[in-house]
């Protein structure tokens, strides 16, 4: 499940469940539509309820990162579980998308 909320120009996307090819598609479609419709400066992934991720999920993340970067925005992730952290780390994605422990820390990151 993919649910979204806005806080000013921050788009916070929460994924619940297994971030596999099914959710990757839903995530891609939802976020891409929102980025088209509204000015977003900061895309934040709420990972507190992600119990699993594979390369389909990673690909969707990287794709949204590229998209928001083109638009001059930023992306971050918070609340990552240990098992998911390992996969993010292995993929090299942590070198480009920063991780925070809580939503408020991810929101505060105004400067880069």
């Amino acid at each position, binding site marked *: 499940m993919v649910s979204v909320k806005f806080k000013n120009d921050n788009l916070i996307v929460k994924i619940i469940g297994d971030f596999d090819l099914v959710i990757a598609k839903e995530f891609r479609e939802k976020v891409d539509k929102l980025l088209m419709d509204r000015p977003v400066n900061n895309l934040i992934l709420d990972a507190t309820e992600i119990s699993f991720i594979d390369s*389909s999920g990673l690909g969707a993340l990287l794709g949204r990162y590229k998209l928001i970067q083109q638009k001059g925005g930023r992306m971050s992730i918070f609340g990552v579980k240990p098992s998911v952290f390992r996969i993010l780390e292995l993929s090299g994605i942590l070198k480009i998308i920063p991780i925070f422990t809580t939503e408020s820390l991810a929101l505060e990151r105004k400067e880069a």
Partner: protein
Amino acid sequence: MDKNKENFVRLQFTSIPDNVALARVLISSLVAQGDITLTDLEEIKVAVSEAVSNSVIHGYQGQEDKLVTIEASISKGILKVLIEDQGVGIEDVEQAMSPAFSTDPERMGLGFVFMQSFMDDVQVISTLGKGTKVILEKNLIKENQACSHLAN
């Protein structure tokens, strides 16, 4: 239940994306019958998820009325998983398995990388126009059980 218990399951399902989760759930329940570390369980789930996703996405190119087959056996503490499709096949297996290679610009080319990092052995047998078999192997018995706890 001891980890060395011999077991065998075969699962077949239609090639719809939602069914990739069924493969993960089945393989998790199977290996969790023995006492396995959380890390090993997670790694096996990712590897199987990659192979099955590949069959659905690349093998059958999104056609949802085809069949994917998984066979998993545990014998002498070794888990062996076969993932098979009768899809388009892979032209150059070596190239396909190299890191970051993907025929789909939206994807990362990490599937085979993860299978290779997380399993002890990965074999790919593919014939263009006939389909693809991926055989994954992992030893569930750790030489040094103490280390497997540290890894969590």
